[in-house]
């Protein structure tokens, strides 16, 4: 997030899109709800589903799935045409405005209405609301990123906020809500194929030199690696021979599971390190038992870039060991000795090679976490990004055109499928499904559908139905719901026995390599 969670409550207008906030980030959603109820902030929700937050919204806009770039460009079209943009901000702090202007020119409210199904009056109204708010905040989540054009969607939102100068001040910003506890930290730590810690590119010779010195090695690769979503198909092609998977369960969370399963069979050697014998671990040649968050010391970085302490409360079961110690043991046995006395020792090394974490210590975050960038020990941290300037100096507008979803409904597969989460379960369910109470509340997978579609395809509430895509099929219970939209069904992806990802499409966003979970075409059969 460019801004903090607490900061949301100071916004005059909040635009939420592609985030089912009350279910996926419940505590954060109460900041939004309080802003609306007790500080009369305006709330606009742009979402194909009638999510809970809609009840609090001044305006709910339902876009056709996969058309986000279109409505965002439409807003900018109106804002530019009516000269509502922040001229000072655009002049002083950004570049690329002329090009943006040219690109959004054709996105007239009429044109936008045709593609997205959003009434042109609504486009004009939200455009005015956003542009004229004193401080407007944008919140988004996987509904925006899990598309073939996910990177475009994110850039479009950044364009919108820069255009109106809703950036770098309290109550503004572009705020991605991270789904998992330490997505932010995993990225910051260089758990990505193209960057070291703090996003230092692996192609930058200085960065490589720095790491080689710090780690006492030579010959670090400077060519970008493969993403998770590329590695698995590459196993099928015989390029990847071995995977070492730590704490992930791709055989439920990956798209196009049937294909992913075949890829795993082609691996020569699979190591899985986890808490449980997950679907993925069952396929492994070696399984290594690790400890969970309550059994270890360390840090997580939350969605607002706040680095916070994790503390050991209980002993792990049996012979389970802390993840980093297992990895170090393997390294040592491969001839590169790695050993640390404590998590804090590792953190001290992180500080040396990670400029944005350099000023953070376990002592400093003992009571409350600190927001990175925090370059020095006397730096207070940075709750709000881009307040004086952008990382690259001036903010660059990216002129972005529309790419339709990779797979659209047709006669054979007439329905859009979108996937997501429910409040009582989490991700692939390996953790939440061990709590009986959570299972009692959300025991099994379902397909959410409108009454009208249920009638049309002749399926009954509470009855089993087969959902079929070009890649696979699963059996789930029908749930007729006012949350659904005609023509689109929703299935949560937590349930291995009816994994929604047997249906989803493996097509990736060309830059972020995120699979297009949010839209694919399916049909129903009883």
């Amino acid at each position, binding site marked *: 997030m460019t801004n903090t*969670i*607490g900061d949301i409550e100071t916004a005059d207008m909040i635009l939420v899109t592609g985030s089912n906030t009350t279910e996926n980030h*419940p505590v954060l959603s*109460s900041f939004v709800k*309080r802003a609306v*109820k007790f500080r009369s902030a305006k709330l606009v929700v742009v979402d194909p589903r009638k999510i809970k937050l809609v009840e609090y919204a001044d305006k709910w806009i339902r876009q056709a799935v996969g058309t986000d770039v279109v409505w965002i460009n439409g807003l900018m079209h109106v804002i530019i045409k009516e000269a509502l943009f922040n001229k000072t901000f655009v002049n002083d702090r950004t570049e690329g405005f002329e090009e943006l202007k040219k690109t959004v020119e054709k996105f007239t409210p009429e044109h936008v209405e045709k593609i997205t199904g959003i009434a042109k009056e609504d486009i004009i109204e939200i455009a005015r609301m956003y542009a004229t708010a004193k401080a407007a905040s944008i919140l988004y989540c996987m509904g925006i990123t899990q598309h073939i054009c996910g990177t475009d969607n994110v850039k479009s939102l950044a364009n919108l906020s820069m255009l109106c100068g809703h950036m770098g001040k309290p109550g503004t910003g572009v705020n991605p*809500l*991270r789904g*998992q*506890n*330490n997505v932010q930290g*995993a990225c910051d730590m*260089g758990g*990505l*194929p193209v960057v070291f810690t703090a996003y230092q590119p*692996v192609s930058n010779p200085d960065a490589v030199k720095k790491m080689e010195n710090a*780690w006492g090695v030579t010959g670090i*690769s400077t060519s970008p*690696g*493969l993403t*998770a*979503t590329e*590695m698995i198909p590459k196993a099928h092609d015989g390029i990847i*021979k*071995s995977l*070492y*998977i*730590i*704490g992930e369960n791709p055989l439920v969370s990956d798209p196009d599971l049937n294909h992913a399963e075949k890829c795993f069979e082609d691996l020569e050697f699979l*190591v899985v390190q986890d808490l*449980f014998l997950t679907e993925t*671990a069952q396929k492994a040649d*070696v*399984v290594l038992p690790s400890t969970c968050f*309550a059994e270890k010391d*360390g840090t*997580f*970085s*939350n*969605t*607002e870039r*706040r680095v916070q302490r994790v503390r050991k409360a*209980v*002993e792990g079961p*049996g*012979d*389970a060991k802390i993840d980093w110690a*297992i990895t*170090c043991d393997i*390294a040592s046995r*491969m001839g590169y000795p790695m050993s640390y006395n404590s*998590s804090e020792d590792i*953190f001290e090394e992180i500080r040396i090679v990670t400029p944005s974490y350099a000023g953070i210590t376990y002592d400093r975050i003992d009571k409350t*976490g600190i927001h990175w960038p925090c370059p020095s020990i006397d730096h207070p941290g940075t709750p709000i990004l881009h307040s004086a300037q952008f990382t690259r100096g001036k903010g660059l507008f990216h002129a972005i055109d529309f790419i339709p979803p990779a797979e659209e409904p047709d006669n054979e597969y007439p329905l859009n499928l979108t996937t997501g989460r429910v409040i009582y379960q*989490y991700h692939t369910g390996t*953790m939440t499904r*061990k709590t*009986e109470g959570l299972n009692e*509340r959300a025991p099994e997978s379902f397909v959410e559908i409108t009454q009208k579609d249920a009638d049309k395809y002749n399926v009954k509430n509470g009855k089993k139905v087969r959902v079929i895509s070009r890649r696979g099929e699963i059996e789930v219970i029908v749930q007729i719901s006012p949350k659904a939209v005609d023509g689109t069904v929703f299935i949560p992806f937590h349930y291995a026995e009816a994994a929604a990802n047997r249906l989803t499409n493996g097509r990736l966003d060309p830059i972020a390599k995120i699979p297009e*979970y949010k839209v694919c075409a399916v049909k129903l059969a009883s």
Partner: protein
Amino acid sequence: MGEQNKIIINNNELSFKSGETILEVAKRYNIDLPTLCHLKGSVPTGRCGICVVEIQGMDNLRAACATKAENSMIVFTESKAVVDTRKKVIKEFLSMGNHNCAVSRPSGNDWTHFQMKVQADDNSAELCPAWGDCRLQDLAYRYQVTGEKPAAPYQTDPMEIVNPFIIRDSSRCILCGKCVKACREIQVNDAIDFDNADAPKKIIAGDNKPLKDSECVFCGECIQACPVGALVEKDARFDRGWQEKKIKTTCTYCGVGCQIYLHVKDNIITRVTGVEGVAPNYGSLCVKGRFGFNFVSSPERLTKPLIKENGKLREAEWDEALDLVASKLSQIKKDHGPDSIGVLTSARMSNEDNYIAQKFARAVLKTNNIDHCARL
């Protein structure tokens, strides 16, 4: 103007910020002013009447939570009038319902004797689940008040136990309204309310239905707010607060990163509460953070390394498993090059774990094939 903001509490001159209540000033200076219904972040109502103070020159006592500090105000927080009033209020609360921890003792008049007896009964269904962790009991003890047997029959609705997380026991409710504020003003879920605004008899969910059929999403904010034993965590109702250690840490589920206390007894997590007063969550949690911790002590946890032999996984010692992994990875790296190996790290693990995983990929395997499933 600022320098004139002086108030005198218990003969100490204290400065305050304009707009602060007497309670807020007192809290800031660590003056122990008791409250029951006050909930930080919500509008004060003065409902419970416990935080009353005496203000020189005023006839009546005032609720400190709802009275603004004023210049030259002279306040006493434990004067005789204050203490007498508090005693009366406490007694009334105790008499309102099934507060058997302080109801006039069946045998003898001895407070200690009574406490011994109740403690001996620990774990019985008779015993209030909040025993030892109850603001009303604390106050009864502090002001040496015992309850009367309830004059009229108190709320005798059966305990609500039909949902998996929360037990509601209206027989112990003192109608302070804190849960309603927690639900309405902090979490903004609006699931519960007084049955009747003017003459409340109990707290109801929706039009008086079980929580599980109401708007409730089991965030548990109301449990954390309730000063007595009327709302408790179902699974922790027999655990005694004073036998637990509290360890502050960060929730392991979503990216909000709520600050939580893990309450631990005998190496088992018994309950989770939100850490009050610190960002990002200021004490609030959601259902997963508060109740989704059973996986930690699940019997399904892996306790030994496993090695696949003839298509089946069998248990192994660390040395054998690690040697196998190291030799296999070395062999594959030698035969097919570093880029034939990939490492998937995890957005669930700590920064330290992730850092070591990428260092392993880059410094040991010499590949940039390292990623995590943030995209998924």
